[in-house]
């Protein structure tokens, strides 16, 4: 299958290991991965902060970067992020329509229909749950809010993780509770965000996991940033990194900054 990769703005600049692992994983599974160079950001930050006018050019750029999918250039678009996929699927059309750009809205909706979050692409489109990964570590999984309640990915990420060889997957208590990130909420309501983060970190610590994984680099940046601050000794890795990990090329755990920072 020919798959176009959305790196996401955060993944491109702050957490390139997530899109990198996504590309390498899909190639390992025998697919051809493309990176449309014109892409930048899906516009979610602008939309969720209320800057819908400012979101328009960002959305337009995203839609135009990926619209070749409608001409058969690629078979599907993959996004290693639940919230970016959610924004593409549930917000971009609305942003365009609100600005009176009905044609762009229709294109956005059509592109969105070809756009999948990573676990959706793997399980629903490619039909795999065992991706041949090897990751001999104690891992807990945080289901991010938008993947869970906007996309309804259900247990797809967990099915993928359970099939990983050597993994010691432990359940995260109160897993479905928000980590408190919420984009600019973390700045506008920093104290409330921190209170939510503290509870999430308590639950992560209670699992005894070495690694916290999730499908969103943004939520991992938040929880990982908190774990790093308290030197929790828990590392955050994107779901793609765990799934891309093999015996020959293991995802990095233990070495480097194992204090919770995501890199």
């Amino acid at each position, binding site marked *: 299958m020919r798959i176009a990769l959305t790196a996401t703005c955060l993944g*491109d600049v702050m957490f390139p290991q997530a899109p990198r692992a996504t590309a390498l994983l899909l190639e390992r599974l025998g697919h051809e991965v493309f990176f449309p160079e014109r892409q930048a950001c899906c516009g979610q930050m602008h939309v969720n902060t209320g800057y819908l006018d400012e979101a328009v050019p*960002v959305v337009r750029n995203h839609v135009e970067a990926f619209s070749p999918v409608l001409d058969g250039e690629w078979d599907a678009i993959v996004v290693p992020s639940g919230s970016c996929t959610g924004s593409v699927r549930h917000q971009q059309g609305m942003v365009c329509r609100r600005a009176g750009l009905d044609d762009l809205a229709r294109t956005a909706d059509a592109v969105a229909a070809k756009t999948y979050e990573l676990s959706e692409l793997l399980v629903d489109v490619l039909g795999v749950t065992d991706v041949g990964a090897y990751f001999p570590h104690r891992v807990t999984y945080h289901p991010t809010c938008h993947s869970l309640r906007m996309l309804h990915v259900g247990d797809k990420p967990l099915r993928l993780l359970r099939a990983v060889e050597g993994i010691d997957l432990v359940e995260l208590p109160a897993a479905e509770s928000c980590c408190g990130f919420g984009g600019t909420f973390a700045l506008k309501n920093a104290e409330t965000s921190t209170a939510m983060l503290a509870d999430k970190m308590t639950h992560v610590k209670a699992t005894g996991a070495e690694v916290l994984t999730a499908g969103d680099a943004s939520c991992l940046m938040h929880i990982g940033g908190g774990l790093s601050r308290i030197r929790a000794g828990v590392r955050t890795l994107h779901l793609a990194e765990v799934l*891309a990990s093999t015996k020959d090329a293991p995802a990095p755990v233990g070495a480097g*900054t194992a204090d919770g920072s995501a890199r």
Partner: protein
Amino acid sequence: MTRTFLGLPVRRGARTLPDDVARPGGHGTSASAGRASDAFGDVPHPDAPLRWGDAFPDAARVALQNTQLRRNLAHATSTIRTKRAAVVGEVPDWEALRDAGSAIKTDVMARLPELLEELERNVVARGGVVHWARDADEANRIVADLVKAKGVDEVVKVKSMATQEIGLNEALAAEGIAAYETDLAELIVQLADDMPSHILVPAIHRNRAEIREIFLARMGDAPPDLSDVPRELAMAARAHLRRKFLSAKVAISGANFGVADTGTLTVVESEGNGRMCLTLPETLITVMGIEKVVPTYTDLEVFLQLLPRSSTGERMNPYTSLWTGVTPGDGPQEFHLVLLDNGRTDVLADEVGRAALHCIRCSACLNVCPVYERVGGHAYGSVYPGPIGAILTPQLTKASGGLSGHDDPNASLPYASTLCGACYEVCPVKIDIPSILVELRAREVDADRGRPTGWGAAMKAASFVMSDARRFRLAGKAAGLGRVVAGSKGRISTLPPPASGWTRSRDLPAPAQQTFRDWWRDRPADAPRTEGGEGR
């Protein structure tokens, strides 16, 4: 602001309780101020029940420091969440019921005027009197005049959000009329001179030890050896209220539903206090928000399944009272229905925001909200807290009080959410609260465009950078400079405002040495199909 003998600020209108509910020491003395002076905490005493206190982030900051509140809320919300999940999970057609509830409410909003007129006709035909109130003042005036016309100076009340919203108790107090709340939790709130912090469980921020203190200090006839065993507390309240039920000539209620095609009003409750109020007094006055009308009697079938499971986590609530006009020789012989607008038609005129009027006040969204769970109801500065309050309150008040844009503390409410979506998932009538929050944020931003702000400038700059790959690539390279800030430890722990909001409690990893874009570009055509290695 004047203060009571207990050191608490006086709620607007003051003296919501009559003198025979004796307080130790009585008004205006400081004889027994000592023990109870701080017992009931720092409670808000609003001039406007839909807009009080500081903007949400500041009010939340204070609430987060209240350890007792945090513990009470965490316990109460998790208990009720679990109960709700269990009883909702056992209904095979729950999603179909939600769809039906949503469809009925959408239909109601589409033809609200004709349904209200139908309701009015049928209430009048069955011997009731219908009053129309444009706003809180009008509603309060109507009710006060009705009570005074009966020549009484006290009334019993069924728990009602509509009368909380208009500050009816305070308005009646100003007219010399004492209103007795008869719902247990509402009684606790009233005795403490507090404000409700939850739609369904107004005293959710109190635990039983605090309730015991409140009863002992303020109830007047509480047994001196009262313990904090829930049954004992309930029995004390029961004895206290029974006298009122039997002597009151006038009762005031809200309504969960008003049925247009029969003129039937409905109150759903758990304690039986509602049934007492609705049947014993000679006169019943019901204040109902205009959005509570449903077209037909059979529509109740949907809502009477959705409401109790969503609110108290019960299969069916213990008491469902339905009454239609006046029945000679049975129950109140005089019935008045006050139909309240108070900003609702403004909300109705809003294509996106009007779905907030679908709310049936179950409070499931409060119980699942991770923000509400931490900060409680008072931080929202409205009798409607939580996710539904965050979309309803600013819409109801947008045209009132002469406040707008950043001057209005209610403008901060749409931002009081991480958009985690838990509220939408449990809403029995499928109100897409996250989408409405985003829309209301956009309204706030648009209303504030004339004023230069840091956020506005940052968002404009980000839009410029993020809408073009070349500019974004350069920005990515510039971000790499952050590695200098991070130093050898690879993390950033201090940043200037507003990013300091982040670094006060979280580190930020150094930006990547090489962006994904550049890694991809530099990648040899025959790159090994493996992960790992350099650059990590």
